[in-house]
């Protein structure tokens, strides 16, 4: 463990401090995508989650040391043509990408590579959902209409304006900006197949999906979360959008500091 930490520090030896991770306890959790497709709770193992989404500055440092992920080098099967298109050049941010804005227009492959570079991985949907259920004072605030309202408010702001900078208020676990800033990639986004016509009530075309995909949503009232699932399920791994960023996670089987 110590060795990993040292590596992370070494990597970030440039101008940027090492990313901070918060420890989350995990536990039994009522996901909107129940484990048995009916009502079963999901068990989330202890994990650590980046306190903030990855920023433009951090991603710039990454592509400088990993040139294969610069936009003019990246293989097209790993990132579509809009990958980092808002940057001034392959290695310059420019006016449309401020250093402390979350990086967007990144593909799932690129996000995964970034996380690997800091000895981490993308969080699973359940991990992300677990962390995002919190508000400032409670681990699970999802039953509070105010929690939902805040998320829906973000949805009702148009996205033609620039993305805000990172640095929202920390939640119960000390994690920031899970809501209200950007969509975020998760590791298993392509297992979140909601039927693309979401109105099939009890007759989802089960053959269309494999395994965990053919799930019914547990909480259809929970529109706020549902929309994130819908968004992620619309994507392919090489896709990028102007609102889609990511953060990384690490497993902490014992709950120790990663």
């Amino acid at each position, binding site marked *: 463990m110590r060795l990993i930490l040292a590596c992370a520090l070494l990597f970030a030896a440039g101008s940027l401090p090492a990313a901070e991770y918060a420890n989350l306890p995990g536990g039994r959790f009522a996901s909107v995508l129940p484990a048995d497709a009916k009502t079963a709770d999901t068990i989330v193992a202890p994990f650590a989650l980046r306190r903030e989404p990855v920023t433009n500055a951090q991603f710039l440092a990454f592509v400088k040391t990993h040139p294969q992920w610069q936009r003019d080098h990246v293989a097209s099967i790993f990132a579509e043509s809009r990958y980092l298109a808002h940057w001034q050049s392959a290695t310059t941010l420019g006016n449309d990408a401020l250093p402390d804005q979350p990086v967007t227009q990144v593909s799932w492959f690129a996000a995964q590579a970034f996380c690997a570079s800091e000895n981490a991985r993308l969080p699973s949907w359940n991990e992300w959902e677990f962390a995002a259920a919190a508000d400032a004072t409670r681990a699970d605030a999802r039953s509070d*209409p105010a929690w939902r309202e805040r998320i829906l408010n973000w949805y009702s702001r148009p996205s033609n304006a620039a993305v805000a900078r990172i640095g929202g208020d920390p939640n119960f676990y000390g994690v920031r900006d899970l809501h209200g800033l950007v969509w975020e990639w998760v590791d298993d986004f392509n297992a979140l197949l909601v039927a*693309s016509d979401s109105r099939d009530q009890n007759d989802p075309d089960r053959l269309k999906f494999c395994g965990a995909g053919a799930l019914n949503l547990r909480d259809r009232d929970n529109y706020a979360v549902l929309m994130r699932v819908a968004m992620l399920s619309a994507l392919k791994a090489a896709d990028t959008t102007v*609102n889609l960023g990511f953060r990384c996670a690490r497993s902490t089987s014992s709950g120790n500091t990663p």
Partner: protein
Amino acid sequence: MKTHLFAFGMAALLLGSAGLVSADDAGTSSSNYIHGDFGPPRGDPIHAVLTSPPNVPAPTLRSYPAKVIVELEVIEKEMPISEGVTYTFWTFGGTVPGSFIRVRQGDTVEFHLKNSPNSKMPHNIDLHGVTGPGGGAASSFTAPGHQSRFTFKALNQGLYVYHCATAPVGMHIANGMYGLILIEPPEGLAPVDHEYYVMQGDFYTSGKYREKGHQPFDMEKAIDERPTYVLFNGSEGALTGDKALTAKVGETVRLFVGNGGPNLVSSFHVIGEIFDTVRPEGGTVEQHNVQTTLVPAGGAAMVEFHTEVPGSYVLVDHSIFRAFNKGALAILKVDGPENKTVYSGKEVDSVYLGDRAEPNLAAVTQATKAAAAGKLTKEEQIKAGRQLFTGTCSVCHQANGEGLPGVFPPLAKSSFIAEDVKRPIRILLHGLTGPVKVNGKDYNSVMPPMTQLNDDEVANILTFVLNSWGNPGGRIEAAEVAKARSEPAPAPAAGH
């Protein structure tokens, strides 16, 4: 099966005799016959011309099935929903309702759904005119910055709603994601002078009706079906003032009326018109002489009428509080010469007299004669005013002038009248909306302009009021009323 074949044969015969459809249009193999399938597309592919509301694309005027390419872009954008109020709409083609699509029965439609790179949400489209699972929704789920394509054959003629069906469906529709597609019958629709596109929708904002600023979507209100706004074409004033629909006397108007919902069913009515022809629910049966037609959420209707008399005709949802308190109003302005044999154009409003009516208006007649002779006295004015007041004013302000607490302000011993005894002239002529303080109490309601009253009548009523119930007395002359009538209306609610 026999009757089916017979009906089919008849249809082919009729179509053939109309000379608009060639024989092989209707297909020759009866064993594989699919209703509405006129065979493979012919000619060069056609790029459909889409129009923004209230405009409708020109008729196809085609006698053969074609391949029609429809390109529709989803754009999420902030637009006004009312004066000084903005809302983030999700749109098909940048407008609410979305672009109007017009094809012909039997056409093969290649549909391209594009989702703007600036979109936050994935979207799809369910066209009620499509035969197939989800009406295209399952084949058109599209992430921001992507496009999907699917193809369908327009088998059934009619006027159909299309809408987004991405989760949460209700929210996508509530944000304006709906529009109409017309699938013309093979012979086309009968020509008319004007075709317009009007679509109702209900909207749910966190703030109250007309609360200024940017208003976010309110999910709780949407689930409870308590709309803040009910609108034609996506914003208050979309079809009034300079943007009113227009026609001339003696013309035929066809309205393609849709209802996007998400929740409410519309009782569509045009005040002052009778629909000569309605195709209820957008289908093929014709109904005639209809006052109000029901347009279901996710449904449509075609209505036609002939204009006879000039004036402003008001399109409403006759669930009437929606019209006057939530915005479901539009105007059709008809210009042209009067036709007094159809409509006299000038009658005293006596609708609300009820049992408060006094059997004769002798004093009014007396006052009118005296005024004509230039010998009208204040006492005659008061007598005439009392009778007119009973008919017109007492319904709200009550026969004793006390009004109704909290709703209709009192006229008796009224501080509001005492402050400015000429002010009531303007109120009768122009109405009064918004908060006022009368005798120390706050009122906030709407008095419509009493434009049915002539100058003499206004003067008489006000003279009666000024000399009753402890008001300061005095006299209002018809000339003062005439002068006030010629001046522009005061700014609404300013200073009150």
